[in-house]
């Protein structure tokens, strides 16, 4: 994480322990996870014990302590999505990618997240792919989506080698 970015995030918030969650939110948005070094800086600048920063970062699901995959697939597991077969959609994701929710594929290209209700219940099952909401998902549709995104990866590699 760039020191300048952290500086910007901390502006107006130094020595204010109650700003801890807002600061971590901004770091998460910028880096995709909360680096250890950032936590140490935040502890010092906000005046919060390091243990407390680590505790808060590990408590809330919004914060990841490890980098996520390049493409994050978030499957909604809310009640309405559940009765419409969200479990099968999640099983498709874990089966096709070979990782569990919260984990990253070995090539770092995908990671799967679960979320308990995004509030788009009438359109479930929902999968969020890189901030894009995909609705009425089925295992088949997800299989195609993952294949399409994977194709971009090989295209990117080909372009890089060309």
């Amino acid at each position: 994480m760039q020191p300048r970015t952290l500086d910007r995030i901390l502006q107006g918030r130094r020595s204010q322990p109650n700003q801890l969650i807002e600061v971590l939110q901004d770091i998460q948005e910028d880096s995709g996870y909360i680096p250890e070094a950032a936590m140490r800086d935040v502890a010092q600048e906000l005046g919060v014990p390091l243990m407390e920063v680590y505790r808060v970062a590990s408590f809330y699901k919004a914060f990841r302590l490890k980098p996520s995959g390049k493409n994050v697939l978030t499957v909604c597991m809310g009640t309405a999505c559940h009765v419409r077969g969200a479990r099968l959609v999640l099983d498709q994701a874990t089966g096709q990618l070979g990782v569990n929710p919260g984990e990253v594929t070995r090539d770092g290209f995908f990671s799967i997240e679960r979320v308990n209700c995004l509030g788009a219940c009438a359109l479930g099952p929902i999968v969020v792919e890189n901030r894009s909401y995909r609705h009425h998902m089925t295992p088949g549709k997800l299989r195609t989506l993952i294949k399409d995104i994977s194709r971009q990866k090989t295209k990117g590699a080909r372009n890089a080698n060309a």
Partner: protein
Amino acid sequence: MPTLSTFRKLDMLRARLREQRKSITKTVAICGGTGCQAACSRDVIDAVKKELSGQNLSEEVRLCVTGCHGFCEQGPVMVIEPGNTFYCHVTSDDAPEIVSRTVARGELVERLLYTDPVSGKKIQREAEIPFYMAQDRQLLSQNRMVDPCSIEDYIAAGGYSALTKVLKGISPGDVVSQIKASGLRGRGGGGFPTGRKWSECREAPGDEKYVICNADEGDPGAYMDRCVLEGNPHLVLEGMMIGAWAVGAKKGYIYVRNEYPLAVKHSRVAVKQARELGLLGDNILGSSFSFDVEIARGGGAFVCGESTALMASIEGQVGEPRPKDVHTVIDGLYHRPTTLNNVETWANVPAIILNGPAWFASKGTRGSTGTKILALTGRIKNTGLVEVDMGTTIKTVVYDIGGGGVNGNKIKAVQIGGPSGGCLPVDKFTLPVDFDALIEAGSMVGSGSMVVMDEESCMVDVAKYFLTFLQDESCGKCVPCRLGIDRMLEIVTDITNGRGTPQQLDLLEELADTVSQTALCGLGKTAPNPVLTTLRYFREEYEAHIKHKKCPARVCKALITYSIDAGKCNGCGVCLQGCMHNAITGKKKQAHVIDAALCQKCGICRSECKFDAVLVA
């Protein structure tokens, strides 16, 4: 725009805005809520904008990007005035035709009209759609008239006149009395009398007090708060201002869950605009009332919908609930008296002030007045947000508004109130949506989420689902919740795997009772409800799993087998290609076979087969 430093200036602004809007004869309102955006309404909005300017209609036609209308399944939705024409499933390709025919000439584009699933007929006018007709959309109807990012829209529609009325001449004590007389009860889940809460906070000792809007809406299946906050944030702000005046608070927070980025954005815009106009800050409208609001984001924790956990989160700490032996109206945020109310509760306040408490109390039942927004989802034809008078029966909501079950399936149950609520069977559908009536039946109105289940839902699996959810969301501090839910889940999982015993049912009930009495917070206390209600009303399903090792709804994986009906299978091979476990074999054009030993019952083959050849038994 200059600051509104007097009441008169606000009145004058309102008059001026209304005058400006008179020249606009036509309006195209497109839903920009999260649901419709998922269905690409942004593309539709851009396309319509382009067409309007291309056809030189931008001057006389107002394109209004509104908040959620509630009829999400039909999205993207659009309403065109005059004519009250309702179009659904609109795509950007439809834009040229919509503008040139309907907007310019008043002609209908038939294919975009809504088809009533019950009668099969096409309906033109939004007001005639049965889904909307049976509702009493006091709060939701405002969504389709205002652009949530425009304070001018809100003011032109009459916004902030309730605040004016209060600041001009209703004392804080009188405001509290009015809210008490209206009978308004918390819309977030607790159903606590709002007037009493405000009164206790007002009388609590201390100069520094807070009001908080709980927009954490964690109940899976609930999105009414998202809809109101995304679609009409100023309505919520105005309610909070009136509440702050009543209890004596100078600072307020809107706590929005992190999974609602659009609601966060619109709340921030609303606060910024209100500050610019001087409707937030010192000496609002020239009165003695000073008040400001900050937006706080959740970190992704259902437990933060609990009031003390929410306050801890605003304080920058983990969202662990605190014991509430002293109520938060006396010892709340930063240990100061705090009034925390749900989004919908705050949204109801301005209308109560403008129309009087008797108007509000005339709707609903004696114990549950006013209207309630319900999120009707699940195995039902018309899913979406529904606003009805309290006291409306579940039957009316599910069948008249919801249109009944899908695929001709029989409806089996309705889950009301989220993970703290309970499942009610069909013979209880005559019950009204009423705080006390539902608590007596073992459920609760809760946030108002209603998930409909049919014969393809296994009620034991539903209990397992909720326990899994609560185990995931538990903060883990107290023994009954952390260990109790875990053990209840262990027992229910055994039952769904065909390893349950009758003694386990008794243990389950005893444990559920202990957890509900000893848990530290509401999450733990109400965690046993899904288990207790399914045991009470669907015991035969539990017994089928235990005695006969069968899942009547054919959901529990350990108790079902997948097979292919050779008579229907034509060997197309689609299932074989989709199977991730290599469990299907077969030659082209010959009936395929599933190897039960390899089959993981993921259901993909069944969902892909176009010939209904995959059987589940």
